[in-house]
Structure formats: C-alpha cells, structure tokens
C-alpha cells in the first residue's frame, strides 16, 4: 500500500480539500446531540418555544452544510483516486514496455491485464473510501467521546472505559475472519482447478472411465470448501451481535447511572439524552469497521500485486554517455558470451562465433537449448552477463540501443499481428513506409498475391468477423513487416514452420538475395542446409559449427538428426 500512497502527493490539493470537507461533515454530526441537549434542556424542560424553533432551525441548516460538504468532497475524492488510478496504470504500462520475455513468464499477459484493470479499480475504491469514510470512522469515535466529555464528563467516562474493549474484540474477530477467508479462497481455487481440468479433459476422463474417481475427487474439495466457508462466515457472524450487545449494555449503564445523578441534579435530562445519542452513533460506526477492514485487506492485496510489477527489476540495458551511431553493415561476432538470469543456471555458456555482413547463419537445437536467448542478445532485448558482442567491430555496449534496433528485424516464433489493416501492420516495421515499399516487402515475403486476392486488399482489417488468417499467412505477414524496414540483420526464430515447402524455398531464396545478415532458427535441416554456417546448440553450448556438408561428415549429433528427418521424407 505504501507504493500506492506515494502517488497521492500529486493530488495533494484534492486530498486536502476532500479531507477537510470530511472533517467539516464530521464536526456537524458531532454537534447534533449537543444541540439536541440544548433543545431539551433550555427549550422543552424550560418551556421556551423560541429556543426549540431557533435551534431546531440551526440543526436543519447544519445538515444542509454537511450535505454540501459531502457532495463537494465527492468531486475532490474522486479526482484524487481516479488520478492515482490513472497514474498507476500509466506507470504499469510503461514498466511492462521494458519487460523481457522472462518477465512475461512470471507475470503472464492475462495476469498483467488483470493488474491494470481489476486491481487498479480495487485500489481506486479503497482510496475513495479512505478519503470519505475510513478516516471518518475512528475520528468519529474519538470525537464522539470527546464531545460527550464536553456534555458530561462523569457519564462520558463510561464510554471511555467500554469503547476500546469492544473495539479490540471487534478487531480480534475480524483479523481472525480475514485469515479464514483467505483459506477459503485457496479452497475455492482448488475446486476451480478440478472443475477446469474436468471441462478440458472430459474426453480423456470418459476415455479412461474415470468418472467415479473424478466425482470422489470433486466431493472431497467441495466438502473442504464448504467446511472452511462455514467456519469463516460463522466467526464473522459472532462479531456484530456481541459488540452490539456490549454497546447496548453500555447504554443501559449510562441510563442507570444517569438516572441516579438526575435525582441529585448532577445531570440534566437533555445531557443524558445527548450522551445516549453519542453512544448510539458510535455503535453505528462500529459496523462500518468490518466492512472497512475487509475492503482494505482486499485493496492491499491488489496493491501488493501492482507493486510487484512496478518494482520488478527490468535491468536497464547498458548505455554510455557518448553512445555511438555508426553506419551498420551487419557483421556480428560473439566473443565468449555467457548469459544467465539472476542466480539461475547459465542459459548460454561461452558462445563464440562470427558472421560477416550478408551471410546466413542457421541455428539448430532442442527446445530449451538457448536458441531464443541467443537471438534476443543481438537486438539487445537481453544483455550478455559475460563476454562481448561486436557489431561491425564496435562493442555493442558502446552503441546506441535504438540505433542498433533500427537496423535489425526480428520475426518471432509466434506471429503476432495487431488489430488494424494489413498495410498498417506491415508499416509497423517502418513508420511512413510508402505503399510501394510495403508491396515490395509483401512480394518478397510471398504474401502479395494472397493480399491482392482479398476483397479489400491491403486495407483488409484484421480481427474482424469472417477474416481469419492461417498460421502460414500470419508468418508471412510478419516477415513482410520485418522486410519493409530493409534491415541489415534479419532474425527468423523458427518463423517459417507453418509454410509449405515450396513457399519456404522461395522465401529462403529471396532472403539470400537481400542485402542483410540472416539468422535462421529451424526445426528441419532442410530449411537451414543452405546456410553459410550452422550453429548446433545443446544445453546452452555450441556443440558444432560449420556448413551442412562438414557437419554431416563430422558431427554425430547432426548426423542423427539428419537421419531421423530423412527417414520421414517420402519422396
């Protein structure tokens, strides 16, 4: 929650106004019983009509003042809480822009979206509440007690002694309740997991005849949930009746003591009524507490989730004061490069190779061998932990990041297109690219013919009803996007997997003609066998390098992969 509060100073005027209006409201409310005492004692008991009329009018007038204060408070409190919400969303969004794929694994996209929406809304609610009722409740209790001292110190002592005890009891129960509710949430998640598994695995469950087993499993989690839920709800139900009973007894005691003192004229009737009225109002305030605490605990859970994102270490990419921006030709060399995330095992170990401008480098390796990590080092989405990477002989660390990235195009494994038209999507690669440039890129990516065949051509809007693209079409579109900026380095991370053989071949031939260095990851040897150099990656290390022929001759790993793939080739 502390992080959230640190956003408040921007809106300090709104917060200050909201809080002072809240206090004004509070004062008015605290005045009421006092005025009532005046009306009773000086008006009714003294039989003075004018006192009743005047003070009755003052009471009504003050109510309106309080109302006006409350209404204006709403504007300022909303301004501050919405402002903070807006700022948190802004910072979250900017933070995520600096995330690496690793961060997306910990937080996941839906998780981040929930934080941006639900969690922020939750926090806005808590802030709004804080500026309106949360502070008010304790202040009212204190104020009420102070005011009753003003009215009659003797009777007020009873309140001073009893209210803290009841408050302590209330908090004790509520904290217990919150712990129990958290447990219930866990049980609920458990049950949802079983449900989800059953929905998605129904074919398997039916196939294996496991309905009875699943029913037992479900009844088990269901029963657990029911029992815990009962416990939590029951303990919460104890709180209010007990506190109310306590408070009512306090009122009785006040009445009893008051009656005795009334006889000896130590207290006036109006004063007694006023104190009882304060006690009743304090009692009403108690019930707000359980609501406040539940709400606040939910809010702080949201705040914690948001803070986790905001405080995530995004490891700013190394930057020097005089970052160089040389003309890029596209030569890349790795010198003893290693990479590891935090304290984890090394993902890449002692990688060394060099690629002259314009060559094609093929990369082959199992899932988890470090291919994608290696590729991410080149556009500096990640920074090597040891060793150095050189671009045309310049150390990458000495170069301007944006300048480097502008020379590189990356086509990731999963083709991701944005909503909008096809031409807009291709223009992502180069803002303000002319139609001619776009078409030429699309032609090179072997997708021009397809686009031309669409009723709306390049203006076809994605994500609309009826228009879906196959995996291969998406891949070619994202290749077109990569080509439109005429990169010096092109990185294809297994992004031709959904293409048929002919198209892939045409695409690869075209790539050879482009004036750029190409890094190509593929599952199939047929895709990379024409590369100038092939890197074999295994558990983060290069276990073989050379062209197709030499590897086939010397490298047993390459041979076995080749064997298994050729077996499947029918023709």
């Amino acid at each position: 929650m502390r992080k959230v509060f640190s956003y408040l100073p921007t809106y300090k005027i709104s917060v200050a106004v909201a809080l002072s209006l809240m206090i004004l409201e509070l004062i008015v409310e605290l005045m009421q019983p006092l005025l009532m005492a005046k009306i009773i004692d000086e008006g009714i008991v003294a039989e003075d009509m004018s006192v009743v009329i005047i003070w009755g009018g003052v009471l009504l007038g003050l109510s309106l003042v309080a109302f006006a204060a409350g209404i204006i408070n709403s504007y300022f409190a909303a301004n501050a809480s919405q402002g903070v919400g807006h700022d948190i969303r802004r910072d979250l969004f900017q933070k995520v822009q600096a995330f690496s794929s690793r961060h997306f694994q910990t937080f996941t996209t839906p998780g981040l979206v929930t934080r941006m929406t639900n969690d922020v809304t939750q926090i806005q609610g808590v802030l709004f509440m804080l500026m309106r009722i949360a502070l008010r409740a304790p202040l009212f209790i204190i104020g009420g007690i102070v005011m009753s001292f003003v009215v009659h110190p003797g009777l007020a002592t009873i309140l001073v002694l009893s209210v803290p005890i009841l408050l302590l009891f209330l908090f004790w129960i509520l904290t217990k309740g919150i712990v129990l509710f958290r447990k219930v949430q866990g049980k609920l998640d458990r049950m949802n997991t079983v449900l989800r598994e059953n929905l998605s695995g129904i074919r398997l469950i039916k196939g294996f005849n496991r309905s009875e087993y699943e029913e037992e499993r479900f009844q088990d989690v269901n029963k657990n949930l029911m029992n815990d839920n009962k416990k939590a709800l029951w303990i919460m139900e104890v709180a209010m009746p007990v506190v109310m009973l306590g408070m009512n007894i306090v009122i009785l005691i006040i009445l009893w003591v008051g009656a005795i003192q009334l006889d000896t004229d130590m207290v006036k009737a109006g004063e007694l009524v006023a104190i009882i009225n304060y006690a009743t109002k304090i009692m009403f305030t108690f019930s707000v507490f359980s609501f406040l605490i539940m709400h606040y605990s939910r809010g702080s859970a949201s705040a914690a989730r948001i803070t986790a994102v905001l405080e995530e270490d995004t490891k700013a990419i190394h930057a020097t004061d005089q970052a160089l921006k040389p003309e890029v030709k596209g030569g890349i060399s790795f010198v003893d490069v290693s990479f590891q995330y935090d304290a984890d095992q090394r993902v890449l170990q002692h990688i060394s190779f060099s690629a002259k401008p314009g060559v094609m480098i093929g990369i082959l390796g199992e899932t988890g061998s470090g291919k994608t990590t290696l590729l991410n080092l080149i556009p500096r989405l990640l920074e090597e932990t040891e060793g150095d990477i050189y671009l045309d002989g310049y150390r990458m660390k000495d170069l301007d990041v944006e300048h480097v990235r502008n020379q590189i195009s990356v086509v990731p494994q999963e083709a991701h297109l944005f909503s909008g038209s096809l031409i807009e999507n291709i223009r992502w690669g180069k803002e303000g690219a002319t139609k001619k440039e776009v078409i030429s890129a699309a032609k090179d990516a072997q997708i021009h013919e397809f686009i031309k065949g669409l009723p709306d051509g390049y203006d076809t809007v994605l994500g609309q009803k009826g228009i879906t693209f196959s995996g291969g079409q998406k891949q070619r579109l994202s290749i077109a996007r990569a080509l439109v900026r005429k990169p010096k380095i092109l990185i294809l991370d297994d992004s031709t997997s959904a293409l048929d053989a002919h198209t892939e071949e045409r695409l690869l031939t075209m790539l050879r003609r482009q004036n750029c260095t190409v890094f190509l990851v593929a599952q199939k040897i047929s895709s990379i066998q024409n590369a100038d150099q092939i890197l074999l990656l295994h558990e983060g290390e290069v276990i073989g390098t050379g062209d197709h022929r030499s590897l086939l001759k010397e490298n047993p790993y390459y041979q076995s992969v080749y064997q298994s793939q050729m077996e499947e080739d029918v023709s």
Partner: protein
Amino acid sequence: MKRDSKETNKTQHTLRRRHQGIGTKPPKVENMGVTLKRIWSYMAGEKRRFILILSIVVISSALSLLGPYLLGVAVDAIIADPVTDTLLVMAGILLGVYILHSVTSWLQNYWMIGISQNTVFAIRNHLFSHLQQLPLLFYQKRQQGELMSRLTNDIENISRTLNSAIIQFTTSILTITGTIGMMLWLSPLLTLLTLTIVPVMYFGMKWITKRTGRFFKEQQKHLGDMNGYVEEMFSGQQIVTMYSQEKRVIEEFSHKNQSLKEASYWAQTYSGFIPKLMNMLNNVSFGIIVGAGGLLALNGFITIGIIVTFTTYSRQFTRPLNDLANQYNMILSAVAGAERVFQILDEAGESAQDEKAVDIERIQGVIIFRAVDFSYEKDQPILQNVSFHAAQGETVALVGPTGAGKTTILSLLSRFYELEKGEILIDGKDIKTITRESLRKQMGVVLQDSILFHTTIRENIRYGRLDATDEEVEEVAKAAHAHDFITRLPEGYDTILDSDGKGISHGQRQLLSIARAMLADPALLILDEATSSIDTVTEMKITDALDKLMEGRTSFVIAHRLNTIRNADCILVLHEGRIIEKGNHHELLRRNGFYADLVHTQSGRTEVVNE
C-alpha cells in the same frame, strides 16, 4: 442490534453496486417460482430448520422495534421520577430484550449459513456428477469459459444470496412496516413529518442513479477498450520493443487511459452522492424530529421518551428502504444464475444403455465398421457409409482435411455418440450390446493437447491404472522415454504439474500421456497426434515411445506425420464424411489419387498432411 447489521449490508451493497455499475438493469429471470422451488428441493432435510429461521427473523425484527421503544419509555420514567422500582424493572426488561435480540440475530445467521452452505454443496455435487454423465457433444457445443462461469460465479452467487440476502430482505420488509406502524401508534403527526423525507429520497436517488448508470456504462466501455488494447500490446510487447515503437504505444495508451479516467471520475463522483444524500436525509429527519418533536412535547402531545424512540426509528426505516432494491436485485441475479445452472442439469445425459448390454472381458481388437452413418443434426451428415475392417494388432491411420470426420469415427468407437445407421462390431459383437464402461476399459487414449492434471507426475501417470504401484509407474515412464527428464527435475516423480502446462515442454507432456496410456495397457489404442512443432530429439523419443505403445494393439491414429502414416497397415482417406480412398501407403501412391496428391505436393514436409 438489527439495525447495525443492516448498516454493514448497506455498505457492502454499495461496494457490490460499484462493481456491477449502478443503474444496470435487474437481471432477467425466466421463471422465478419454478427455480426457487428447485433450490428449495436441495434443502431436503433442512426445510423445517429453514421455517424455524424465518420465525426467528420475525422475533428478532420485533425485538429491534421493542428496543428503541423501551428506551424511550425508560427515559420518560427517569425524567418523571429518577429513582423508582419501575426503573429497575425497565432496565431488567431492556437488558433481556438486548440479549435476546443479539442471540436471535446471531442464531438466524448461524443456521442460515449452515443451511445455505449445505445446499450449495449439494447443488455442486449434483452438478458435477451430472457433468460426468453428459455426452461429449455437450462439451463441444459450449465454450469452456462460459461453462466455467456457470460452475463458479453463478453458484457463488447463489451461495452469497442464500447466506445473507434472504434474511436481510425479510428483515428489511418487516422492519419497515413494523417501524412505520410503531411510529404511527406513538405519534401520527410526528410520523407524517418524518415521512416527508421519503419523496425527497426517492427523487434524489432517481436523479443520481440516472447519471451513475450512464457514466458506469461509459466507464465499462472505456475499460473494455483499454483492456483489449493492453492485452494486444502486452502479448505483442516483443514486437513493440524490437521495432522501437514504445513511444507511440505509450502515447496511444495514455489517450485511452485519459478517457477512462474521465468517465470513471464522473461515475465515482455521482455514486459518492448516494451515502451523502442518505446521511443528509437522516440528519434532516433528526432535525425534524427534535425540532417538531420538541414543539409537540412542549404542548404535551408527546414525551421526551418518544423523541428518543423516534430518532432511532427514523434511521431504522430509511436504511432498509434504501437497501431493499439492492437486496431484491441480488436475489434476482442469484435466481438468474440458478436458472443457468439448472439448464445444465436439464441437459440429457448419455443415452440409456440397452438393458441387456453385457460387460466384456479383454478383447482381441478386431474392429469392423459396417455402413456407418452419423449426424449431429438432421440433414447435416457428418459421416456417410463408412465401412472398414481392422484386424487384431493393426494400425489404422486416418487422413483428411479438418472437418472430414476423423475425430467422429474415433468418438463413435468409444461410444461417445450413438450411430444413426449401420453397425460397429468389436470382436464380432455389436457395440450396442456392450456396456460403455467395459468398452472404454479396453481403450487407451493419447490426445493431441496432452491433458495433465494439477498433481504430481507420478499421479498423472497412475491415472492410467489407479492401482498401479510406484515401480510400475516408473517402468512405463522408462519405456516411454520420460524417466530421464523426470529424474532430472528437482522433485522427480513428485514434481507437481500445472494444469496449464508450465514447467515442462509440450513434447514432455506428450511423453507423459503416452506413459499413462501404456500403464492402462489397453487392447485398443486411440491416438491423436500432435501437430505443433516439437524439437527433433524429443520427436524421435515420442516416435519410439509410440511405436512401443502401439505394438500388438489395434490402433487408430489421426496421423499428421508421414512416418506414422507410411507404416500404417491401413490408411483411410476421408473427405466430407466419406472414405474416398483406402489402402496402405504404396497402394495409395500407386492409385495416384487424393492421397498421392497430398504426399507429392507436400513432399519434404512432415506435418502438413492433415492441414
């Protein structure tokens, strides 16, 4: 006292309203009576207790009226003559009333929670076992997310409403009528003056909710808009970074963020008026009561005690008046949820079996399809005149474009659906004469999207045969080439898997599901091969494991890899629900038809035969 728990509810409702958006239309309910009766039927053994609860609610509501009244009487007594025996009696009675009120209001909630949780437990169990009975078709027709929402949110809604809303709703009505009755009895004139705030309240609320409704709708729209944008940009964040588009994206986002802020600002501001309005009306009525009551008291029409009583009563009836609409809406939305839940319960289960159906023992695995027709809906045939024969131990590969009917054939074999025409024979027996359970016991399935459960690897494999020992589990894991990677995991066989598949790779998941099927040791195998690209080494392992699994078993494979297809004893090429070619690889190549076309145009590719 009663009024206090009401205050809590009020604030909670404000919260809930904030989520739903004030001014949203009440949920649509088809048939309230029938649905309530159905919920009632789940209360089974607790009906008597439920009626008892309702009578306690009446008592506690009455006590909440009695408290303030007696307090007023006591005040009068004290003012008249501070030290009398009556005071002692009054105090005793008041104490009794307070204790009884606390006890009854606790008891009604305590019992109600017990009943409602038991009821929800029963509904959940019933629902779950019904889900197990439902035919596969049911699951195919529905989106998982939507089903999930019925199973969780809708039931949770019923639970919450049963917990509190019913008691609150009854209490509210009783308190409002009771309070007004008591006030009229004590002083009709002062009552009338107090009630003057009701119309103000009505119009005030109407003015506010009209605005909040509009702005909440707008807020929802902007929120949805931003949600979509954020989701798109986060999932494409890598692209954004690589093309250095951060500035543009942040710029676009800030516009959406700004408009969301504006809409929410008004929604929150206006909704903040509601408690203030209520507060003001309470204060005004307090002023009216004290002022006008004071005048009346001066003239001897009423006593000071009545003023004290009225100050409490006026709060006691405005609050529930404000809550009533929310409580009613809450009940309505729970009933609407219950209707959605009951809709699932009304779905017909798998069709009844033939009474004479018998259990079968271990089969040999000779399968014959004879002129099988099938359709989900009339006039839209899915399969037409499908006939083929598979001898024991043979592998049958199914090939054809999406929608050709490959999966349907396998589903018919498992009797997930009933045939329309023709027959299926297993070892010469018509499958209609065999019980579903014993039939499915003979089969093992390995599906494309390897379904794993959120439990240990060991238990996931054991799913194939529940009484398998740990040794047997490890044995099949070894045979399926899964043992190595499992033992490399820090927790080994006790590694707990996520159902969404984090932690182990796609290929490894497949190895586990192959091990699971091996453990089941079925006579018949049904395989839906994976299409997604798996790295070469893992793929070799999978191929080898599958070969082992298929050995000696009659297997049906929806095949994607040429390797499997080529080695199949029989390939069925399907097109629009018909078998258009049938034979082994070489025969089909020689025929130079559809299959040969597929193979030639895609030579060099290994995975596209079924695209």
